[in-house]
């Protein structure tokens, strides 16, 4: 599916990650859109997804309840699907709650696009962030304990604008 791109990444705020994986995109789609599968990969270890709900339709709920290893910290995110093209594109945001009700704490719109390459798949994950992102970021700090930082981001951040 091709059309004029809606989105131009802002290097100060957004991430575009492209990957190639030797698996058919139908399988990626299943892993992206089925709660039992999402629970297995969505949250960086050692955090886990303790609950996941998916109502796969535009306006439907995408909920992931993530928790720290000791269970004390919890990040329960209620997102809303915006666009669903099976095996091609999945878009959700936390700027809206299910049923398109505006949320009080918008932070991200995520876009996953899948393109077949033979029996394999090239896919792109795009994270479009709101710039007043700090509060939510703070909630997610637990994920980052002990993670290294990416030093050359500074150059990209200042120069890539």
């Amino acid at each position, binding site marked *: 599916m091709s059309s004029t791109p809606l989105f131009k990444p802002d290097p100060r705020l957004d991430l575009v990650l492209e990957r190639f994986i030797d698996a058919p995109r139908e399988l990626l789609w299943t892993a992206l859109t089925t709660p039992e599968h999402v629970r297995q990969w969505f949250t960086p270890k050692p955090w886990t997804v303790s609950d996941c709900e998916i109502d796969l339709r535009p306006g439907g709920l995408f909920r992931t309840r993530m928790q720290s290893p000791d269970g004390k910290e919890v990040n329960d995110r209620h997102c809303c699907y915006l666009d669903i093209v099976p095996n091609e594109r999945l878009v959700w945001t936390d700027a809206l709650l299910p049923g398109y009700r505006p949320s009080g704490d918008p932070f991200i719109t995520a876009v996953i696009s899948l393109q077949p390459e033979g029996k394999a798949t090239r896919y792109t994950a795009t994270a479009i962030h709101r710039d007043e992102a700090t509060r939510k970021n703070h909630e997610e700090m637990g994920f980052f304990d002990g993670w290294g930082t990416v030093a050359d981001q500074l150059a990209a951040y200042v*120069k890539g604008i």
Partner: protein
Amino acid sequence: MTAATIPQTASPNIPPIDGIFRALSDPTRRRVVERLNRSPASVGELAHPFDMALPSFIEHLKVLEGCGLVRSEKAGRVRTYRLAPEPLMLAENWLAEQRALWERRLDQFDEYVLKLKEKGK
């Protein structure tokens, strides 16, 4: 370096990163930051490349200083600006952390999908 140990949002006040992003949303101010990335400079040196009235330019410098991105010192009649590294680190770490999250997430996704593929055979 660990990103997580920097108490970037420990303050209950308005998080400084908002002001940083706002300050950097303007092309003139970004160019000033780029310039100061090389070395400290006086107001005159900073203003030189811009076709802009000095008072307007100084307003930009005030915004940058107000959010803590730059600092200035006056020696005699010359005010010299320099980049304050800490706030840029905050901004840097913020995006770096988002990237780290997604890299990790997609690593796990790939691994899991390949596992599913193996099972399906």
